[in-house]
Structures are given as structure tokens and as C-alpha cells.
């Protein structure tokens, strides 16, 4: 069972039009830049995939990563908690032109909906958002005297994540706080593709150190010197 894939191009080749794509990362940390840019390149060359729904905490910065996808015009909808950044133009333009739909979800509810999708929990209750405009349309239930909203799971066709080590069985580790959404997105997607800084053999990651077990990962591609999105933007060398 070897889940390794030879190139980022091959890794994103099967993503279909209209797919729901979870993209790991918080701000620039954990964004799988090379996978996203391979996806943009594929779209520019072929017109596919298009009409994507992207799930991420944010909605892109500058002209790289998710912003590059927005600029290319391949995203129809964004599900996120914070579609603002230091350079939010890519999203802002599309949003104000009515070219991209926004589903705004509180960050913790977003994380829990994703985790629920991965864990087979179709709905759960949270106090987050009760009494606010983001509660619109959501059933309210009272438990032990407190009101809670019912929230639904969130699943995806594809998750794109960035790992540190990855073995051929799909076991992953992450670099520091680049972990953020990756482990739960890997759980919630039918197909999870991980770019990893180093592809290793099964057994090279200690069983106790595995953060994402291989059962949640369908493809692993080595990107030995990955761009860090924040560093990339600050460097001014924009892809």
C-alpha cells in the first residue's frame, strides 16, 4: 500500500468541477502552497476544476494560494470564519462583484463542523452564535437551562493539507502551529492529499508521534522545500 504520488500536478489531477475542497492552514501557516498553485496551473491550462467550494479559516492574502485561486476565477463559494487579511483584495473584489458566495461560520463552529464530518456526527449543539444574526435558520434547543444552536457536519470531496513528515501509508506529522485545521480536514474529506516536506518509509514516524493516521490520507506527495505562504508574501516573490 503505497500512497505516494510523484508530482503535485498528479496529486491535484482528479479534483472535479464543483468539488468541495477543504484547504488546511490558518493565515499563511499550513497552507499547501504548491498543491494550490498546481491546481491554479491546471485550471489556467484546462479550465478545470472550476466552480469550487473552498473551506478554509480565511479567504486568501495577496496573490498567492487561495487568493490565486480566487483571482483565477475557479472558486464559486467560500466557507470560512474570517475573509479578511492584510491583503484581502482577491476575495473582496470577487465578493463585492457578487462572483463568489460567502458562508460565514464562527471559527470554533467551523472546526467542530469539520471534525463532526470526519467523525460521523451529522449534527451537534453549540452555544456559539445564539442570539446573533449567524443563528438565522438554525434550530435552537435548551439543555440544562441554556440555549444552543444545532449545527450540521461539514464534509468535503477533497482536503489539501501540508505535512512535515509523511510516510507511504499516509501517516502525517505537522510543523508546529501549521497543524491547525489539517488533522480535522483530513478526517472530513473523501480524498485527502498531503504535500509533505519529507516522504519517509512506514515505521520512520513513531506510532505515538503520528498526528494524522494514514487511514485519513489517500495521497502523499513530497515537496522538499515548500513555500511558507506568509514568508512568500513578505518576500515579495509572488508566484
Amino acid at each position, binding site marked *: 500500500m503505497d500512497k505516494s504520488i510523484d508530482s503535485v500536478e498528479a496529486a491535484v489531477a482528479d479534483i472535479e468541477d464543483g468539488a468541495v475542497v477543504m484547504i488546511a492552514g490558518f493565515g499563511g501557516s499550513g497552507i499547501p502552497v504548491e498543491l494550490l498553485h498546481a491546481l491554479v496551473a491546471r485550471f489556467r491550462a484546462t479550465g478545470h476544476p472550476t466552480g469550487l467550494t473552498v473551506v478554509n479559516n480565511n479567504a486568501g492574502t495577496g496573490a498567492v494560494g487561495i487568493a490565486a485561486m480566487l483571482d483565477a476565477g475557479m472558486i464559486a463559494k467560500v466557507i470560512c470564519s474570517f475573509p479578511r487579511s492584510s491583503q484581502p483584495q482577491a476575495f473582496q473584489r470577487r465578493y463585492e462583484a457578487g462572483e463568489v458566495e460567502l458562508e460565514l461560520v464562527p471559527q470554533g463552529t467551523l472546526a467542530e463542523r469539520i471534525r463532526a464530518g470526519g467523525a460521523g456526527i451529522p449534527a451537534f449543539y453549540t452555544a456559539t452564535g445564539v442570539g446573533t444574526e449567524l443563528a438565522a435558520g438554525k434550530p435552537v434547543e435548551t439543555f440544562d437551562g441554556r440555549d444552543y444552536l444545532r449545527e450540521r457536519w461539514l464534509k468535503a470531496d477533497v482536503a489539501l493539507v501540508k505535512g512535515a513528515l509523511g510516510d507511504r501509508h499516509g501517516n502525517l506529522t505537522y510543523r508546529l502551529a501549521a497543524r491547525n485545521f489539517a488533522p480535522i480536514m483530513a478526517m472530513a474529506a473523501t480524498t485527502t492529499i498531503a504535500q509533505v516536506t519529507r516522504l519517509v518509509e512506514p515505521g520512520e514516524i513513531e506510532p505515538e508521534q503520528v498526528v494524522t493516521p494514514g*487511514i*485519513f490520507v489517500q495521497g502523499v506527495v513530497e515537496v522538499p522545500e515548500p513555500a511558507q505562504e506568509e514568508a512568500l508574501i513578505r518576500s515579495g516573490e509572488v508566484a
Partner: protein
Amino acid sequence: MEKLSSAGIAWRAAQDIPDGAYVNLGIGFPEMVARFQPEGQHVTYHSENGILGMGPAPQEGEEDWDVINAGKKAVTLLPGASIFHHADSFAMVRGGHIDLAVLGAYEVAETGDLANWRIGSRGVPAVGGAMDMVTGARRVAVVTDHVTKTGAPKLVERCSNPLTGVGCVARVYTSLAVVDVADGRFVLREKLAAVSMEALQAVTGAKLHVERDLRELRVPEGL
């Protein structure tokens, strides 16, 4: 009546496990399925207590009692194994990440209902992870003798014992046959050559339907 040994049933069940599958084996007899994994196939075994990539039992005296399976027997970790906590372990199950669960049964109904955790209301009830497994795994198979120790059918129209799950079983590997559950009917896929259709139906508590592709149930000699 001629019948397969437990090893024979386990061998037959093992042949259907696809390469690359993530599999959970129930406590007791189903654990034997792992022994007959075909050469060259890679199957990853899950244990409820937080292990993926379980290997066979260690040599006696080499046990590490913090590396056990769901039946509390000592196991080993294969290269590529991972350890996780109980909620993550059942997220794998409930979230549909386990390709196949192989369980034992007191009864399987033609509706796919399974009863395997309790006989009537006797004794101390104990459910473990069976109810989670039968609703969560993508496919549920049963390995069992075709009849109970007293000769009563285990394949029945409706279970008489408390249910583990409703409409959850896809295939049953018995000591006499391989039977699928399809659209609320038992469909016979394979039977031992030495057992006649009439004899098989006589020890089965619900109608066995036969479609074109009925085959002989064969296992290697010596099992």
C-alpha cells in the same frame, strides 16, 4: 453434515478483503481472519482502543500489556502503525473510514439485522464497540457457524435476541455457505459441494434465494 472448521470460515472471509483495506475484527473468533490474509496484500487492522496497524501476537513472554487489542490480548505494532485516543478511534469507525468490520453473530436476519451482544436478557449485559462498528463501518461481514450449538438456525427471518444493529450486515460466512443480504433477502453465493440445497435450507431459518452465480464454497485442504 460436512462443515468448515473455524479456520476454514476465517480463511474464506479473508479472501474477500481488498488490498489496502482498513479492517476491524471483532473479539474472539473473528480475530482469526487476520491469520489468512492473502500474501502480497496489505491490510491495516484497527483496534478500538486506539491502534491502527496491529500485527500478530508477540511470542509468549514478550507481551507488552500496553499494546493490546480490543479483546485485551497482547498484539504487536507493524511499521506504519499509529496510536490515538478513544474518541479519535471511534471517529474512524463512526465516520465511515473503516472499510470492513468482521463480527461474530448469535443471529443474522434476512433484513440484515444483527444480534450479537446479548442472549435474551440474561446476565450482565456488555456491548463494547459492536453497535458503533455495525453502523459505522462501510461494510459489515459476519463469520459464524451456520447453526447454534444446539442446532438452531443462526440465519433467520427476524432476530429473537436484542439487536446490535438494524439492516447492517452485507455478507455472512458460515460453516456451510456464503450468504449475502440483498434487498431484505438472503442470497446464497456459495455452498459446500457436499451439502445439498435442501439440507442447507433445512438448517437455515429464512428462505435462501439463489441467483445465477451460485458457486462452490472451497477452502484449502487442512483447514
